């Protein structure tokens, strides 16, 4: 019975956040703590000869930690162990950590950092991914025989699409505090993070110690968007080295400038499409080449590439598909996780390619999608047969009904527009569309390998305590788990407490990533609660009265108040990791977006004037939170499309302050009209699938499509800045150039 699921409860952590009482890492009182800082490389590649310490500074005032102070392995353990905690000889990117400094106050730290000068013999750097010889990871997906189908194709439509990097711009910069080992030898770290067990793993490796000698505790976290998936491991390793060197707690809390300069951002991409298509628009064969810039080290790049490749053919049916993906090593700051995790890049490419096909065949973009969209019974590029919870038709038809986009005479580049002159209208309008899906949960056998564990325990006060490693960082994990647990127990939200994500107390339910927290971990929470409820019910046979009273009575009667659940994938899923064949995800979220834009013909500034999104999430556990996820994700996608510029020069990010690293403000935000569709997923909690990443995927191609409609120029490279649009416009209208 659903009482709390599907209604909007008050977020348990909300009042503290809006009143300013919430304690973020920078607010943690740490008497006697020192301040940690980092001496970094200022070149993209070179040989580190040493770090000169200016004798004018009194180095006795500070403590230093270099590679020699690493007790275990000098690696930040992630997927591959190729990234050192501190560089030894080889320098691979601007901002690479070389030496750590702890000082009793910020002023002394600043003076020490200014007095430490790295000596690096520069080497030629690889800064263009097209030229990068070193492949970090490759993936090949083959369905049917795309090369043969293309070889005999009557018509091949080609397109090359590019996306630049994007900064997460979480509200709170990265930060951790580390304590020196306590009397029992245990090292404690508290910090802003998404994945406490990732940090735990990297510390155990770096310290060369036992799992129970490291304790990682997430504190209130001001946003993540993927940016706090991997980097907190780096920062925690640094803080721990300094705490050991200084013998006191060490605070390493980046200011915004340092955060923007050195932390991972979205992978830049270049995607090529070659598509064979019949006269009526039916997709006959797709050949897709995906290239990502991984930056200097592996970090999470193979998994980002995996998600990119699986989503590269879009939400379309096609018998012959070949997807070749590569992520290459360059001497850029390592790129990492950002909401969507490779999918926004390839979704941009395939949706623009669909528009290009529509233009070439003079078909309406909506009609082309209708003809080719995946429906129940179809198979994806990996050969996954879609059996259930496929909201594709509903999301497309509903967004078209609301927007009437299918009656809008969308114009591809090259189609003549009404004449314009200097006395005519100085603005053009356009409308664009996108249709897309996003796999929920880890890819393929990821969940089987991880075996997420969740515990629910009745405490002495009769409350049910939900223990997981899944973190709240603004997205609503606490309210969502509270609602699921309350319904599964037959309790009220007040009867539920969500335990802090402390690796010494909670089981490993896996990282808080990949749109898996609700569908995978939430499902385990419900199962554990259902088990407790069954035990309580069997003991008393009575479910009347307040839950807390019944829980106390159950415990007093000797009942076992602890339930633990290990995740089991839905039956029948088959995945071949070697050939990338089979059931890539247990379920997919589906969505369609419509964007309306106005473009200024003097300045080529783009204003998104209206944005519609219809989304199938299976079941909205907390509808207001789900709508918030879709609004926020859509806005990040709109920023990705036309506003958020992050460029590099010599391996350095040029926009390394909030004054220059622009994200949309209120006036750049259109009304976002969200509509939820619920096509339940039988194996998800209350029918829920994922929602976190999905809304990041479709906004950029929809906006780009609208700009193309407005201006009649191809928009194949985002962000579609005014500078890029002006250049393209003047190529199309050379008579207007100065």
């Amino acid at each position, binding site marked *: 019975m659903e009482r709390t699921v599907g209604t909007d409860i008050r977020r348990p952590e909300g009042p503290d956040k809006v009143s300013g009482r919430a304690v973020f890492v920078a607010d943690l009182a740490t008497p006697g703590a020192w301040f940690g800082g980092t001496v970094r490389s200022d070149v993209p590649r070179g040989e580190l000869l040493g770090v000169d310490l200016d004798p004018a500074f009194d180095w006795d005032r500070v403590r230093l930690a270099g590679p020699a102070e690493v007790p275990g392995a000098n690696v930040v353990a992630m997927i591959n162990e190729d990234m050192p905690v501190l560089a030894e000889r080889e320098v691979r990117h601007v901002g690479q950590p070389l030496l750590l400094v702890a000082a009793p106050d910020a*002023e002394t730290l600043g003076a020490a950092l200014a007095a430490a000068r790295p000596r690096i013999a520069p080497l030629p750097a690889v800064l263009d991914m097209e030229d990068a010889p070193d492949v970090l990871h490759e993936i090949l997906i083959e369905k049917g025989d795309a090369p043969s189908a293309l070889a005999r194709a009557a018509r091949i439509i080609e397109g090359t699409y590019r996306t630049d990097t994007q900064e997460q711009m979480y509200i709170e910069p990265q930060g951790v505090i580390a304590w020196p080992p306590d009397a029992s030898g245990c090292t404690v770290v508290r910090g802003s993070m998404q994945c406490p067990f990732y940090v735990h793993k990297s510390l155990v490796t770096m310290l060369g110690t036992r799992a129970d000698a490291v304790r990682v505790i997430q504190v209130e976290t001001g946003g993540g968007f993927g940016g706090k998936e991997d980097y907190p491991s780096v920062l925690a390793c640094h803080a721990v080295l300094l705490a050991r060197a200084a013998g006191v707690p060490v605070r390493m809390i980046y200011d915004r*400038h340092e955060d923007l300069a050195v932390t991972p951002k979205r992978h830049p991409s270049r995607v090529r499409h070659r598509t064979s298509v019949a006269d009526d628009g039916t997709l006959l064969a797709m050949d897709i080449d995906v290239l990502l810039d991984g930056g200097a080290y592996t970090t999470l790049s193979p998994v980002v590439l995996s998600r990119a490749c699986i989503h590269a053919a879009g939400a379309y049916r096609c018998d012959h598909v070949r997807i070749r993906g590569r992520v290459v090593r360059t001497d850029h700051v390592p790129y990492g996780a950002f909401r969507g995790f490779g999918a926004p890049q390839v979704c941009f490419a395939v949706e623009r390619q669909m528009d290009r096909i529509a233009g070439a065949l003079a078909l309406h973009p909506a009609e082309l999608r209708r003809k080719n969209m995946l429906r129940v019974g179809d198979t994806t590029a990996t050969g996954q047969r879609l059996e259930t919870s496929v909201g594709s038709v509903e999301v497309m038809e509903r967004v078209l009904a609301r927007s009437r986009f299918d009656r809008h005479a969308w114009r591809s580049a090259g189609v003549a527009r009404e004449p314009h002159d*200097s*006395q005519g209208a*100085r603005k053009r309008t356009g409308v664009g569309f996108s249709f897309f899906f996003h796999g929920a949960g880890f890819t393929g056998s990821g969940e089987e390998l991880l075996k997420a564990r969740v515990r629910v325990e009745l405490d002495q006060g009769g409350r049910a305590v939900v223990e997981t490693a899944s973190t709240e960082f603004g997205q609503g994990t606490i309210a969502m788990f509270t609602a699921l647990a309350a319904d599964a127990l037959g309790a009220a939200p007040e009867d539920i407490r969500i335990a802090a994500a402390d690796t010494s107390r909670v089981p490993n339910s896996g990282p808080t990533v990949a749109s898996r927290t609700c569908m995978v971990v939430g499902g385990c929470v419900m199962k554990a609660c259902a088990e407790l409820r069954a035990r309580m019910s069997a003991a008393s046979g009575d479910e009347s009265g307040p839950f807390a009273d019944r829980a106390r009575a159950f415990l007093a009667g000797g009942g076992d108040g602890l339930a633990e659940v290990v995740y089991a994938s839905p039956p029948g899923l088959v995945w071949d990791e070697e050939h990338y064949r089979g059931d890539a995800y247990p379920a997919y979220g589906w969505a369609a977006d419509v964007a309306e834009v106005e473009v200024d*013909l*003097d*300045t*080529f*500034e783009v*204003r998104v004037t209206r944005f519609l999104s219809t989304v199938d999430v299976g079941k909205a556990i907390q509808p207001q939170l789900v709508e918030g996820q879709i609004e926020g994700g859509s806005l990040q996608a709109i920023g990705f499309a036309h*506003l958020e*510029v992050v460029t590099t020069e010599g391996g350095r990010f*040029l*926009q390394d*302050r909030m*004054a*220059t690293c*622009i994200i*949309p*403000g*209120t*006036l*750049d935000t259109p009304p976002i009209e969200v509509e939820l569709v619920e096509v339940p997923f039988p194996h998800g909690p209350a029918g829920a699938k994922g929602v976190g990443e999905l809304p990041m995927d479709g906004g950029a191609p929809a906006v780009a499509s609208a700009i193309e409609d407005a201006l009649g120029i191809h928009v194949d490279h985002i962000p579609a800045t*005014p*500078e890029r649009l*002006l*250049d393209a416009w*003047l190529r199309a209208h050379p008579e207007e*150039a*100065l």
Partner: protein
Amino acid sequence: MSPAATVSSPRTLAGALDALVGATEATLILAGGTDLMVEFQTGRTRPGHVVDVWRVDELRGIRAEPAGLRIGALTTCTELRASALAQEHADILVIAADEVGAEQIQARATIGGNLGTASPAADLTPVLFALEAEVRLVSKAGARSLPVTEFLTGYRKTARRPEELIESILVPTRAPGERRGFRKVGTRRAQSISKVVVAVAVTALDGVIRTLRASAGSVAERTILLPSLERELAGKAPDAAALDRAARRAATADCAPIDDVRSTARYRREVLRRILRTLLAELLLDET
């Protein structure tokens, strides 16, 4: 801020001028701090001796004088936006003040500071150029006034001597029938720094242009005048094509934009031409 900095915080104009006796190029004057605090934070400017004039109330206030509108150097963007006098006599200055930064920045950012830091991207300065404003400088040795166009001498350089303080700005009385326009192109729709900013003031009689002063920011090392426009258009009754020719001339001959973190030289030049053309057409061809 480095602990080596010394700060004096006078409460009166006389006290401020005393504090500036013996000042050098390294002496920094702090008003609202919206520029200087960022300079300190980024390390681009090292604080040595700082004279904090924020509490010198004699430098505040907007009043009408026979020659025009006298605006105290410490007048903030928020005060400009709220001033009926400013709205009446210096309408495009109010529009420009409204587009500076966020509300919090507007509450601290002063007109004297906007002029005094001499940023090429300053939003108020092009308006002061177009309106032929004068700046009044005071020191223990006396006072002097000079046109703002002469006050700015280069990239973040002004004619202010180290012992001098910007006391006020005079915006001359509006010429009868003068029409004005302002346009800022930033990196987003609010809270942004200009990629291109222009201000124009024009008088015409029976369709014939008598005076035309235009100024632009973010297209050279400092705020500049665009003399080509007046040269090409004064004494004429231009049509759209003539306006376009003049705008093209100004965008090619009068400015020297660069590529930087916010935009490109090409964009700045092309867009300067396009927004000038549109602005002039709105002011002169009765287009809405």
